[in-house]
């Protein structure tokens, strides 16, 4: 039964390989990949239910029992993220089906997206540090390809920077793995956690944990986000939406996993550094979000702000703060995909990404305008939308633990999110309509459907918080009590 656990990674790979042979059939590829992602989402939902009722499940590849072999471990945290990312990918793919050029569709766009999601799901599921590195690389290689597909000069230029920075961060990852293996003699996450707990977190181990912090911060865009705005604002909008929704989240997942399961014994060092980095990220992201006139850059800086906000939850590290971060993580995947898709539609319609070139879109495209409005409220954390519950939980946890500085910056950043998006809303949707009803570009049929699905998702998450709560509480519980995870992996075989 446990072998179903491999499918969230295996299914996209198999389908992706098949699609390579169907290169010329753009629409067929899109439909096949949407169906594949829907099946993946369905299976993840089922697995989430199983984990909730029967506890953590694992799959030992080749029958090698931990700590010897590579394994996949599914707890509520990873299954929630796998489920969300599969749904988001399916929606983004349907947007690609409707909106992207035929040229892009036949240049292996869909297979690459499927390989990307295989890497993302693999990173969420794996229970082995080196396998995490491999899954990261699968994801990164696909992202390199996606970033260059479309072939504009700007993309090539940004891709060189993005690829270089990621090669260096992968190098740091390998260095950290080498030292970790040299000191502890294992790479299985649960085994690592057990051994660190036994010998205590020595200064050497804390140093290694900080190398990991650098690696994952580079991937997540925590403080080391200088590469992010350029590379997230240059590719086709579907790619940006996928990147904004998924890629940084994998880095955040890794930070949560490593610093709550393995290196949690010296919070006064590691978690303080994370807190400082989160605050600096919030400041930098906020300044960036209000500094630009290009709406794609504003959206990219909003990704940065969200990263800082979630890591505030990890820095506080109380159960309710972790819970809030998980809520916010799921919300942010939905909301960032939505933000990028709406902004992409605006750019397609007005032919420019500058705020100055758009005005009064509300009169021509009211539905698009209100979608943007809901996105804005959701990202700012207005109830009853999905961003609210995460913000309130992190804020109350910050008050309980006396982290007033973190609280102040987290709340202040929400104001900046609201301000930066309100500026887009005011300049682009209100104001004098410069394009008359006769001259306006027609919305391509169905192009708003993916956006509306995401809008209803963000409302549904906001209203359905109560029904999600048991899963989130379980996920936070496993993160706060590493013994549950360790026993599930190293205990007797199921």
């Amino acid at each position, binding site marked *: 039964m446990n072998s179903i656990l491999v499918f969230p990674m295996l299914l996209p790979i198999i389908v992706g390989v098949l699609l390579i042979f169907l290169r010329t059939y753009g629409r067929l590829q899109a439909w096949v990949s949407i169906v594949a992602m829907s099946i993946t989402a369905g299976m993840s939902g089922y697995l989430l239910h199983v984990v909730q009722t029967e506890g953590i499940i694992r799959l030992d590849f080749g029958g090698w029992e931990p700590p010897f072999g590579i394994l996949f471990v599914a707890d509520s945290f990873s299954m929630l993220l796998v489920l969300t990312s599969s749904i988001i990918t399916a929606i983004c793919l349907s947007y690609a089906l409707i909106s992207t050029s035929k040229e892009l569709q036949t240049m292996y766009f869909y297979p690459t997206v499927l390989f990307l999601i295989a890497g993302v799901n693999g990173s969420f599921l794996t229970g082995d540090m080196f396998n995490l590195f491999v899954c990261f690389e699968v994801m990164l*290689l696909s992202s390199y390809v996606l970033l260059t597909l479309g*072939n504009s000069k*700007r993309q090539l*230029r940004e891709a060189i920077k993005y690829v*270089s920075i990621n090669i260096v961060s992968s*190098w740091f990852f*390998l260095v950290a793995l080498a030292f970790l*293996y040299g000191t502890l003699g294992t790479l299985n996450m649960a085994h690592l956690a057990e051994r660190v707990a036994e010998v205590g977190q020595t200064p050497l181990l804390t140093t290694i944990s900080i190398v990991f912090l650098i690696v994952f911060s580079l991937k997540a865009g925590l403080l080391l986000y200088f590469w992010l705005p350029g590379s997230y604002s240059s590719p086709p909008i579907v790619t940006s939406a996928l990147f904004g929704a998924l890629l940084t989240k994998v880095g955040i997942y890794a930070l949560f996993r490593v610093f709550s399961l393995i290196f949690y014994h010296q919070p006064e060092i590691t978690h303080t550094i994370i807190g400082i980095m989160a605050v600096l990220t919030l400041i930098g992201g906020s300044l960036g979000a209000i500094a630009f006139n290009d709406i794609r850059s504003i959206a990219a800086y909003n990704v940065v702000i969200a990263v800082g906000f979630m890591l505030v939850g990890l820095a506080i590290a109380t159960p309710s703060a972790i819970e809030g971060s998980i809520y916010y993580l799921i919300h942010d995947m939905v909301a960032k995909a939505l933000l990028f898709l709406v902004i992409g539609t605006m750019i397609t319609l007005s032919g420019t990404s500058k705020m100055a070139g758009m005005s009064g879109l509300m009169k021509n495209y009211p539905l698009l305008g209100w979608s943007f409005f809901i996105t804005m409220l959701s990202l700012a954390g207005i109830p009853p939308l999905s961003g609210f519950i995460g913000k309130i939980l992190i804020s109350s946890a910050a008050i309980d633990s006396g982290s007033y500085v973190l609280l102040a910056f987290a709340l202040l950043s929400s104001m900046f999110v609201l301000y930066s998006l309100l500026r887009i809303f005011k300049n682009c949707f209100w104001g004098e309509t410069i394009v008359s009803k006769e001259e306006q570009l027609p919305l391509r049929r169905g192009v708003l459907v993916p956006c509306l699905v995401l809008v209803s998702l963000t409302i549904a998450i906001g209203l359905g918080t109560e029904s999600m709560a048991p899963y989130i509480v379980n996920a936070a519980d496993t993160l706060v009590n590493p013994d549950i995870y360790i026993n599930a992996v190293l205990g007797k075989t199921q």
Partner: protein
Amino acid sequence: MESLIIVLVGVLTTVAIYLVLSKNVVRVILGTAILSHAVHLLILSMGDLKVGTVPLLGEEATTYVDALPQALILTAIVISFAVTAFVLVLAYRAYQELGTDDLGAMRGSQDE
């Protein structure tokens, strides 16, 4: 022996960092290739160098070498090979499109 290898790792890393910090794209790529070699040697020396025979059944030896670092390196080599191949093609395409291999000229202008 391990100390010697660690010194070699240091030398390789130094060379690689010098190359990565230069402005020419091809030099940067060569730098990243050397960088990956350095870390492979580091992983290898972490598992102790040559303390016994190959870890196979039927060798009848008292000590065996640790097979795991070798497996890790094999995987890492394949990945770095793929990435290097991709970056070389990317650099070539960028050179064709942008007409330059100078990273300083790829800064991008404000008016895009």
